[in-house]
């Protein structure tokens, strides 16, 4: 299957060339196309570099879809085994000499694995946000007047796990082409041109889709923050009512 990958690797027994995860070696930048061609010629070090470059992205994609770290690890690992097995037959769509990413191919393998194994579970939409986080989200979404200083910086807000979970569940709830373009751009780090090749639409159509998807994401996040805030208010009201009843009962019995 990938015997050539092994046999042609450093046949002299010397250490193979060293590729870095960012695709750069002593001789200059190695694009994915260069690494794939090298791996297809039997350079195992090139495939190791592709693994280092893409493992964490495929893990995050799998985590987004399975909402489970152990499943995400399995899917990511299996994706690279399948990729290794299929590498001899792989061909880049973009043959115009420009850099193209291996990510979409790995993305498709991972998604097929997730669908086949029925492990797809959208992120939980139940999150708890405290008041400063809700205020911070209102700032980030442009819901409040400029100058209304929140207790937290935008950086602190985007780094909070519960916010990231809320945003992931919002992305999962979008129409499929909206979530797909966001995943390709922000997770896969693909250019508009690469996304247009993958989604078979023009670059201007992808630009427009990215805009619509971002607007839709803002609306979905806003809807979820509103819902959390409503639940929070109801919970506070309910607690206040309980306290009042308890005080009332206490007065009567005392």
């Amino acid at each position: 299957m990938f015997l050539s990958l092994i046999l042609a690797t450093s046949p002299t027994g010397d250490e193979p060339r060293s590729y870095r995860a960012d695709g750069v070696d002593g001789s200059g930048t190695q694009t994915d196309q260069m690494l794939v061609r090298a791996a297809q010629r039997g350079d195992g070090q090139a495939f190791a570099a592709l693994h280092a470059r893409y493992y964490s992205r495929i893990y995050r994609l799998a985590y987004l879809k399975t909402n489970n770290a152990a499943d995400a690890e399995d899917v990511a690992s299996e994706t690279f085994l399948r990729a290794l097995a299929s590498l001899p037959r792989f061909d880049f769509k973009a043959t115009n000499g420009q850099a193209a990413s291996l990510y979409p191919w790995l993305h498709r393998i991972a998604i097929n694995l997730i669908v086949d194994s029925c492990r797809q579970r959208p992120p939980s939409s139940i999150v708890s946000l405290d008041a400063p986080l809700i205020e911070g989200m209102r700032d980030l979404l442009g819901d409040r007047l400029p100058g209304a200083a929140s207790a937290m910086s935008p950086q602190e807000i985007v780094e909070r796990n519960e916010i990231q979970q809320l945003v992931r569940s919002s992305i999962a709830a979008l129409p499929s082409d909206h979530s797909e373009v966001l995943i390709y751009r922000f997770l896969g780090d693909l250019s508009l041109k690469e996304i247009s090749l993958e989604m078979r639409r023009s670059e201007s159509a992808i630009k427009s889709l990215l805009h619509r998807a971002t607007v839709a994401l803002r609306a979905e996040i806003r809807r979820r923050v509103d819902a959390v805030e409503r639940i929070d208010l109801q919970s506070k009201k309910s607690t206040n009512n309980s306290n009042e009843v308890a005080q009332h009962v206490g007065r009567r019995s005392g």
Partner: protein
Amino acid sequence: MSEDALADYVDARSKQGDNAPEPLDEEARALVGTVKLAEAALGTPMPSEEAERLSRERLVSQLQETVARAPIAEDDKPGIIDRIKRIFKSDG
């Protein structure tokens, strides 16, 4: 136009991070916070080093099995397996 401005801003962020200048277009500027949220949510969580190492080891193991089954002279096989391990920096 807002679509161009947003696409340019996203491109600039992927190269310059937080140093990317915010778009002048008002509609695109209103989406800056959403872009930051999407970036952060899709940029996490990071896999553990252990998970990545185990994934590399599965690749090595797969390659070793292929060598074991391959019509190669038995004397050559240990050398080939050593090379695979060095390539994937695996102790497995």
